[in-house]
């Protein structure tokens, strides 16, 4: 009986630890994605839906759907990376489009 209780509480502890670490992982990924978004915004190139994805990710995480939350964060992160690349590309391209 005693042994069983100990076993169960250890199990619960391990489970909650993994939950905590998954949450921490999400928080870190979210923060990194939001910083990327601000980096894109700083060069004037934030995309329309990035902020929305980050908001939806927070909501999904609050409802315990970390899988969905992480996917949304990844999407937001990728968008901002693409936007920053786009800006770097356009700095060299725009002037050849000018009507002369």
């Amino acid at each position, binding site marked *: 009986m005693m042994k069983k209780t100990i076993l169960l509480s250890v199990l619960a502890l391990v489970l909650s630890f993994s939950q905590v670490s998954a949450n921490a992982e999400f928080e870190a990924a979210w923060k990194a994605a939001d910083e990327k978004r601000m980096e894109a915004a700083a060069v004037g190139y934030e995309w329309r839906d990035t902020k929305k994805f980050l908001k939806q990710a927070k909501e999904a995480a609050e409802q315990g759907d970390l899988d969905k939350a992480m996917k949304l964060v990844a999407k937001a992160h990728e*968008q901002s990376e*693409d936007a920053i690349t*786009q800006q770097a*590309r356009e700095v060299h*391209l725009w002037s*050849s*489009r000018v009507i002369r």
Partner: protein
Amino acid sequence: MLKRIAVVVLLGPLLMLAPTAGLVANADEAMVALGKEVAFDRRKGNCLSCHMMDNGSLPGNQGPALVAMKARFPDREVLRAQIYNPLEKNPHSIMPPFGLHGIISEKEVDAIVDYLLTL
């Protein structure tokens, strides 16, 4: 014993082939259907906004009509590249880089290619 082995050797590949061939055909059809859906979806391919295509009504005319695609794109990869990232061929292209910018998924790019090659 030997006979039995022979039967297995002979029938084996046949047995394996039959259902797979059916699956491949189904998968192709499913991809073409998905491709059509994505192509017409206004939030995804939205091809009709610039291209005349299939039986779509009120097409735009920013881009060329999507007809005789197999003849125009004998190399499937050339068509895929044009949808995935038209900027590679022409950095000023007004066609959105559907794959590069994640407007549609990799699978959806493949599906649109499958669908377009039926036109």
